């Protein structure tokens, strides 16, 4: 089975029902590694996040997923960049208008 970056992104997005995900995945050699950023991870500890990712990949790709996917770290947007300006959501942008 060929596991691509797009397939990993799609698997994580659908299995974890990620809200507004951003992916920073890279493929070096045969392994895919990187980070996924989503508010879905807010309030969840490091262990729980890794379990979520590991389970999602196993469900999508079986045992081979663990071999082909290196490490994927999970962050919320604020954790990824605490200095980034806050993103205005549609609801906030239209509030009060």
């Amino acid at each position, binding site marked *: 089975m060929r596991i691509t970056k797009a397939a990993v992104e799609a698997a994580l997005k659908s299995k974890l029902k990620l809200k507004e995900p951003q992916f*920073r995945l890279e493929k070096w050699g045969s392994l895919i590694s990187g980070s996924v950023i989503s508010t879905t991870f807010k*309030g969840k500890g*490091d262990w729980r996040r*890794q379990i979520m990712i590991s389970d999602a990949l196993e469900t999508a790709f079986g045992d081979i997923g663990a071999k082909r996917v290196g490490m994927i770290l999970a*962050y919320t947007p*604020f954790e990824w960049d605490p200095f980034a300006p806050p993103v205005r959501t549609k609801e906030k942008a239209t509030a009060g208008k």
Partner: protein
Amino acid sequence: MNYNLGQIDYRRAGLERLREGSILLNRELFAGSVYLSGRAVECILRAVIWKHDTEIRTRKAALDTGHDLRELLGRVTQLGVLEEVEYRFELAIDVQRIGRLWFNNMRFVPTERMKTIWWKLGESGKRRTLKQAAADYHDKCSAIVERCEVLCE
């Protein structure tokens, strides 16, 4: 300027930064301690890459990850030195945490500002002092350095 730094330099520097981080922690100089302990992790990840990546070691390729621990870990993963999935899993948990709490510009951040950022990240607060959080962070950095030390031998 090219300083010709290599695996041994990065490894030694990592151990030195970790020790310095510990000294500052004991003196309750938290921002400095956190900054240096995170830098120790960067150093040891770089040492692992230098040891196992021939292209980097022979300077045929440049390490273009910058100072981002998350990217450095990704590069280490690609080297195939973390064979055991369980081992990768535990290292990922520790680096995920340190990658969240450390950033290169931390060298410009005073303790009060760091305290605010960590509070917003839920790392410290009413039930967990900055001292406790900084000590736990240092322990996690030590664990990563210890694991990666094995990969440098």
